[in-house]
């Protein structure tokens, strides 16, 4: 009988308390949900729930504050690193993170991203790179691949007129203010676990006050890419990963 098996000692997995019970609004198969869970579990496992302050962006994850059960501020589009700076400067002992999409972090908020990293603000920046503007309906992002179609590059991104995709994570890694820079994904259980390990490391490093930790998660946007979740994961592996290779980019010496 199943009831006989439901005992604390048989429990192998449960939802972390750092995620609320609210039903997420993300599309089926979207990377945001798994990325949220990995970050929430990392916060939980390190016992940081009571001292964490998060900053939500403008983008599909604008309502992240409904899902993370930590105190949070919702920033204007692109300004999360500045908001996080304000928080961390008045509360240096708290754990502070931002959670941002590619349009938010690498287009409208490029200056805030670069300068927060360059000052070495002791915060964690979680960067969800899905190569598209999900929330506003699939427009071209700074990270949209050459030739990739979007509603504002309907014939595919033409780099001659629309510019090249921005590898902001490689750029950030150059700055002396960053301490740990890595690129991960959450599309398989193995990758999700790696992402969680990276997030935990980043949160632990924050206590050292050695600079900004930056975790990029290459993610799918089935709706924006006009694919099924399975197709989108395959497409991501075949197209996104060659351009945005996974792995650590800067690790502490």
């Amino acid at each position, binding site marked *: 009988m199943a009831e006989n098996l439901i005992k604390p000692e048989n429990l192998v997995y449960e939802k972390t308390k750092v995620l609320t019970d609210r039903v997420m609004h993300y599309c089926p198969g979207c990377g945001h949900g798994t990325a949220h869970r990995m970050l929430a579990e990392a916060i939980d496992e390190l016992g940081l729930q009571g001292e964490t302050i998060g900053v939500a962006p403008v983008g599909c994850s604008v309502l992240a504050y409904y899902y993370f059960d930590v105190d949070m501020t919702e920033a204007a589009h692109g300004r999360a690193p500045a*908001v996080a700076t304000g928080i961390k400067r008045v509360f240096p002992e708290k754990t502070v993170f931002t959670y941002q999409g590619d349009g938010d972090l690498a287009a409208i908020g490029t200056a805030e991203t670069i300068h927060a990293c360059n000052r070495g603000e002791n915060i964690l920046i979680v960067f969800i790179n899905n190569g598209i503007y999900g929330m506003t309906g699939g427009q071209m992002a700074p990270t949209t691949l050459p030739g990739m179609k979007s509603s504002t590059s309907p014939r595919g991104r033409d780099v001659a007129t629309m510019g090249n995709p921005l590898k902001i994570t490689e750029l950030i890694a150059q700055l002396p203010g960053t301490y740990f820079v890595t690129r991960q994904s959450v599309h398989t259980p193995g990758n999700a676990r790696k992402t969680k390990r990276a997030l935990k490391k980043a949160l632990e490093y924050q206590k050292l006050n050695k600079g900004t930790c930056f975790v990029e998660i290459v993610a799918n946007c089935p709706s924006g890419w006009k694919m099924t979740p399975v197709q989108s994961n395959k497409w991501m592996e075949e197209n996104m990963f060659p351009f945005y290779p996974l792995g650590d980019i800067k690790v502490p010496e």
Partner: protein
Amino acid sequence: MKELRLMKGNEALAEAAIRAGADAYFGYPITPQSEIIEYLMRENPVERTGMIVLQAESEVAAINMVYGAAGCGKRAMTSSSSPGMSLKQEGISYIAGAELPCVLVNVVRGGPGLGTIQPSQSDYFQAVKGGGHGDYKLIVLAPATVQESVDYVKLAFELAFKYRNPIMILSDGIIGQMMEKVELFEQQPRLTEAPEWATVGKKPGRDSVIVTSLQLQSEEQEKVNLRLQAKYREIEKNEVRYETHLCEDAEYLFAAFGSCARITRKAMEMAREKGIKVGLIRPQTLYPFPVDAINKLAGQVKGILTVEMNAGQMVEDVRLAVNGKTKVEHFGRFGGMIPSPDEILNALEQKIIGG
């Protein structure tokens, strides 16, 4: 201890911020207000009071840093001059929408565009009519002296926390740059306890604190607006501040604010010497505006001249307050030009008495 000093307006304001127990200042240099951040960096208040000072990469970043710190229940402020204040407007709207306290200082210079670094009052509309997007209001304090610049910093933080609203000190290049004798108030303690609406880390047994201005449901967003409007009515009831001079027997009235009111006062004295019975009303709060006081005086005088260093902005609020009871005209110099008392007296004679 109270202390008497000869100080430049901007520096006195910066010293007042430290003494008011501010927790954080974020700013970006722009003339004519860079002395504020320069003074703070020199003074290094982190050692005096623990107040932190940071030069941001832009005005946009600075106001968003203020937003983050204000959400933590801290006394946060920023200062700028006109072009920089334009850049801050989105952030100010978010702060007003999320109902956070903060202090904003605009040491106004002439515009539009890059304009001039010379003093002006041409950001009146931006300050009192919203500036950014959405239906929100700032309490706007208009100092006319270095002393008021100092006193209004303390008042601004008090009002900001009383109403959980951004407060703007609308100064100008004259007040920011001139030196005057000033009495500095005693050092106030910094805040020790965080208000319950502040993000400080989730405590067991309470819901997480969310600082946001987002309400996707229109019904809910309307409720937010109604709550804001109720707060603004309360502010209009409680916080009107103004000064009158020689209004008892006045047949004519000047209306002017800030540095311009000081020049206008001189014009009033010259008019009195000529036997012209003119008084002066000087709004110290531009929002809430002294509507009732002006309306009452409108019943007594034959005409009102607003004197402004702009092309006619406060004059619209005076006309609304007067509501047709008497003639209202505007006299202004702009683009960084400062009116002389002679010009003002002449304008009174031409536009109000003779007109």
